């Protein structure tokens, strides 16, 4: 479980997130949603250690990620897998080398064990026989799958995804969402996804944290979200005609 308490972060004079607290449980797909510029990606970057919050605590299974000693922080970091918005695959490495990279650097596994694990992860994301392809030779959706495989290859306990559906067609987006949910359930990972895609929210939102203007305005799940009673959230959720019709029907 990940617990964040009173996280705040500013850049110069501008407060980007303020006093945000939440609990993200294992085996659930936890979503952080909000409009562009609301601070959700900044919150995610604070949680994975790419930014340091000005105040607040972040606990990974009770271990302090902000003020913990260097060994604790390193241990936590090595339990984290992250899928970046653009995939962030290493250009100079092929698919297999990209996925094997965390094992090469962080483990003492034999080459055979590493290859078994790589092939297992590739099979799990339905990308068998793409081992030798370069990132530039595969589609955006496949790059995201390789990114997921790389994020879970080291048996990560925590999986973070920054807008996993950006730049993908609706069908591929749903496939990625379902893959993330299946992996979360199968390996009992604590998965946190930053998104503003309402399809994802309705499809896999087991826990949803809504951020608006730097503040946490609502939390709940995909069943409750259409009856939240929060004006800002309603404006966000029912921004398009399809969702408005869905509300009228329900």
């Amino acid at each position, binding site marked *: 479980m990940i617990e964040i308490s009173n996280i705040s972060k500013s850049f110069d004079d501008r407060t980007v997130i303020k006093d945000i607290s939440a609990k993200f449980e294992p085996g659930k797909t936890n979503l952080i949603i909000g409009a562009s510029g609301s601070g959700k990606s900044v919150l995610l970057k604070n949680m994975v*250690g790419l930014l340091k919050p000005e105040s607040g605590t972040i606990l990974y299974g009770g271990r302090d990620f902000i003020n913990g000693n260097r060994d604790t922080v*390193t241990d936590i970091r090595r339990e*984290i*897998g992250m899928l*970046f918005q*653009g995939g*962030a695959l290493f250009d100079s490495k092929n698919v297999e080398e990209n996925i094997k990279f*965390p094992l090469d*650097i962080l483990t003492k596994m034999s080459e055979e064990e590493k290859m078994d694990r790589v092939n297992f992860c590739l099979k799990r994301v339905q990308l068998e026989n793409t081992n030798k392809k370069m990132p530039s030779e595969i589609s955006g959706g496949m790059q995201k799958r390789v990114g997921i495989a790389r994020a879970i290859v080291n048996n990560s306990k925590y999986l*973070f995804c920054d807008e996993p559906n950006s730049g993908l067609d609706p069908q591929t987006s749903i496939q990625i969402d379902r893959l993330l949910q299946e992996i979360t359930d199968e390996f009992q990972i604590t998965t946190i996804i930053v998104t503003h895609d309402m399809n994802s929210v309705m499809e896999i939102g087991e826990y949803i944290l809504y951020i608006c203007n730097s503040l946490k305005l609502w939390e709940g799940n995909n069943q409750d979200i259409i009856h939240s009673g929060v004006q800002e959230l309603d404006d966000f959720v029912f921004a398009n005609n399809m969702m408005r019709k869905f509300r009228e029907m329900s």
Partner: protein
Amino acid sequence: MRRIGQYILFLSALFRKPESFRTYVRLTLDECVYIGWNSLLLVTITSIFIGAVTTLQTAYNIVSPLIPKSVIGLIVRETTIAELAPTITAIVFAGKIGSSIAGNLGTMRITEQIDALEVMGINSVSYLVLPKILASVITYPILVIFAAFLGITGGYLAAEFTTVVSPADFVQGLKTTFNPFIVSFALIKSVVFAFAISSISSYMGYYTKGGALEVGQASTKAVTISCIAILLSDFILAKLLLN
């Protein structure tokens, strides 16, 4: 001042939380091939022509019949070893390798590849930059020795194929009063230049913000600042070591 402080912190991060020794050996060897071997053709062409042109220009400037023609060989040897091989090659090296390092790291930054390393708990500065600096410091002095040899050879070829000086006079000049310290001086300069080029270019690339435009700007700045650093350190080293 803020940039200088950030550069010093960047250098101090090179040795913080390093990965295994084996990892660095492999990465450094890869970089040696990329930085050293791939620069060989450019260094060869540059050095031969610079040596040849130095011979022609020195001959053009020696108008007094009292100065023996063999002086041309002596001047070519001294200027090539002490100045042209380490410094001109460094400027060429900054243009080729400096811009490449900055562009490579800048692209990794804007495509979140550096963030990916950090999230995995890897010290990205140490992992990405240290092998580049080590490879530069190892291969650049070798390139300079090579450049000096080719520069003098270029000077000899100019003597052979033109009438400005006879090859025999040129060779006689080459053999006249040799002070071995200029070789040490050239090698000391080459290590300093290699460190300056690789570290400045890495710094410029690593802290790139924005998109493709900013990556291009970072590469340009890396070359410009590296060239200034080369010329400045060249002057300081000459003042310190040749007094």
